[in-house]
């Protein structure tokens, strides 16, 4: 792979805090290597701003390996940028060429208020989990791990849903700012395991109730969430959530038909 350097124009959302109004600022960065990650390009820009005595841009990040779910940039109109199944931190600059302009915004959703610049508050996701995204088992209650065999296919499916990193890209991508993909991933993860079965009905009801309370929009089956999800959480999960939800409302609903 040939390496090259490039100069870029960046239009980045600046917002002092939750209450003040934000605006776009334009910056020029020079000699960006095609081998850098997108966030390393931001590091370069921030070092440049600090050297010039200006304020750097605040953005969330931690693992820079695509797993912690902390990074969250809306790049040229797409949550986490142009690469399929990729978080912002794993996007690399060879995607861009000399002279490109890149527009970077925070996640935009009423339930994710901006804290500063590109940093948003995602605690609503924690509260949705608190509403029921767990198995009620105290430490020490467990039986032997192999006491209940689980069909490999079911276990793999459950794992695929559990791969959600809670980044919120699905909300940012959705025109309604719905959190349905996130919620459905958790509901599915636990619904597909025997350990999650006893609390199935209350879990789905309580989590959805909390989601509504947090001010996320409703799901109208647009599918933008699936397209932008870095972990490949599929719309199948939402379909499953809907079945679980209907099941939870019908008395004696057929919980085992999934």
């Amino acid at each position: 792979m040939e390496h090259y350097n490039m100069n870029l124009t960046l239009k980045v959302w600046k917002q002092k805090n939750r209450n003040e109004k934000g605006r776009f600022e334009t910056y020029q960065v020079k000699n960006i290597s095609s081998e850098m990650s997108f966030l390393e390009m931001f590091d370069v820009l921030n070092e440049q701003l600090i050297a010039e005595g200006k304020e750097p841009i605040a953005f969330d990040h931690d693992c820079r390996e695509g797993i912690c779910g902390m990074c969250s940039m809306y790049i040229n109109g797409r949550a986490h940028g142009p690469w399929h199944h990729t978080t912002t931190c794993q996007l690399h600059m060879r995607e861009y060429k000399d002279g490109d302009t890149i527009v970077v915004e925070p996640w935009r959703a009423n339930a994710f208020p901006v804290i500063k610049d590109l940093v948003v508050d995602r605690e609503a996701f924690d509260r949705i989990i608190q509403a029921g995204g767990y198995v009620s088992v105290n430490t020490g209650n467990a039986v032997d791990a192999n006491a209940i065999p689980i069909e490999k296919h079911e276990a793999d499916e459950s794992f695929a849903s559990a791969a959600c990193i809670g980044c919120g890209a699905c909300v940012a991508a959705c025109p309604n700012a719905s959190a349905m993909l996130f919620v459905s991933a958790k509901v599915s993860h636990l619904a597909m395991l025997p350990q999650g079965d006893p609390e199935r009905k209350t879990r789905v009801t309580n989590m959805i109730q909390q989601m509504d309370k947090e001010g996320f929009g409703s799901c109208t089956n647009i599918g933008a969430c699936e397209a932008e999800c870095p972990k490949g959480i599929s719309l199948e999960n939402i379909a499953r959530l809907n079945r679980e939800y209907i099941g939870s409302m019908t008395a004696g609903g057929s919980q085992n038909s999934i």
Partner: protein
Amino acid sequence: MPLNSKIPAGELAEKWEKYKSTCKLVNPANKRQLEVIVIGTGLAGASAAASLGELGYKVKTFCFQDSPRRAHSIAAQGGINAAKNYQNDGDSTYRLFYDTVKGGDYRAREANVYRLASVSANIIDQCVAQGVPFAREYGGLLSNRSFGGTQVQRTFYAAGQTGQQLLIGAYQALERQVALGNVKQYSRHEMLDIVMVEGKARGVIVRNLVTGELERHFGHAVLLCSGGYGNVFYLSTNAMGSNVTAAWKAHKKGAFFGNPCFTQIHPTCIPVSGDHQSKLTLMSESLRNDGRIWVPKKQGDTRKANEIPEEERDYYLERRYPAFGNLVPRDVASRAAKERCDAGYGVGASKQAVYLDYASAIERYGKIEANKQGLANADKATIIALGKDVVKEKYGNLFEMYEKITGENPYEVPMRIYPAVHYTMGGIWVDYELQTTVPGLYALGEANFSDHGANRLGASALMQGLADGYFVIPYTLGNNLADDIRTKAIPTDHPAFVAAENEVRERINRLMSIKGTESVESFHKRLGKIMWDKCGMARNAQGLKEAIEEIKALRKEFWSNVRIPGEINEHNPELDKANRVADFLELGELMCIDALNRNESCGGHFREEYQTEDGEALRQDEGYMYVAAWEYKGESQYELHKEDLIYDVVHPTQRSYK
């Protein structure tokens, strides 16, 4: 103060059982009056907080990320060990204990390691009960894989995302306790000091990272679960925010620091690509199961990997260690890679890399697959295609990550890898009860020094974090808090809280008022370079002495020339970073002092003066069979306390992997 490790008397295998059945208990009504502060929500912190909440304690958790679920434990890939012996391949508690002590090059405490091995099986049970979707076989039972330094298959895993799945399990247990009102959680909060009242840890000062405000929190006890300090090297596989601050503040308040120089350098990471590099990415140890590591036989060879014929390749691990080959332990593999690159055989643009090649694995798996499918005369192309599918199934997510980062396709060209800082075996010294030398202050997980000696085996850190949190601290904390049930919550306007807060505020003011010319990042990079060059994979007395002076000078420069933009009372990531780097600049010095003191090579600590004729680590059991526990006595002043290691059961020998 003499160090008392409080190891219970009795036979090794019975110590923990006996401790559990005789330790003091706190009744449920009293537990509700007892407040516990937990710093960190990784595997250690989340499991501890959830378990203590379930028991009825009033718990507060703190983490600097925006959610407890993002703690760095999330990034662990390969797996978690447990002595379940599900594979019927001869595993047992004793064997896991033995492998861990040997892997640690005989610098760990026997009693702790034995306890760790004995609770390992419960961890897997607990996680499965919580809904952790471990990998399974077609029969529906749990699957295992093998890891370095062992001869049994005892590693449980969830694809290449084991840490994520375990942490989500612990996080969910934690959120359940939050919902029940037993735990209050504070995200985007950073602990900046411990509050001491009458010689005991009774609370913390934290900074709200959104508003910049300082807050005081009381606790009958404080648990440090704040992770490792590998980021002192600037470049490491740790997350960007991983830091030593919580542990370092505790150290300055009287908690001894154990074996600070014991650092694990992982052999298989994606190499540095340039000056812009901000972190290094691990390629799981599991890749060494099938990949072959080599460099060209010719120095400075500029040909592409695929143009170098088989007979001109040096599979140096297979050559030097025929018995273990590519599966030697991490410290050995890392040093061997460094040796080849230093000698001028490195590959890639920087020449600081070796190849990890999957070509022969692809062919081998392809042939097996062709056989399975009854394709007797399959041509080479078919075999390769089949082989790639098998490799994809096993390692697909890692190969994909490699390609995203480097832009190269590892199915076609060998991966370039190089060792990188990964884990710190050193940490806050704790006794058998996980209590530090400060009464009321405990350390769990990677933050403590306890179980891995001088080198940690793969898949054992996750095990240790969860053992500490789920199964050890619930007992040992109770044993100590039983004596504290009459202590009322101390109001946070107590002079000790006021004084501690003032100290923190003053330091922040001092940092902000420097208004120098050089960024925090730049100082951190410079520190990292000193540490990597002189206290990294190979160390010597001369270099360490130089490093100590260089770090002192750099620290001085930092405190007179750092530039931190923004304000104190707002979300200010540069200030957060400055607080952390200031502490790294002190820790780095202590690491070099410790490395200089330890006149031997053991595990990850390689002193060039102490090696065998063929370049292997040479331990000096006579003089150094001890834990070095350092007491803080003022800037650049540390007093060494020794905890002698006594091996009742295992007999230390020279490790050999030839």
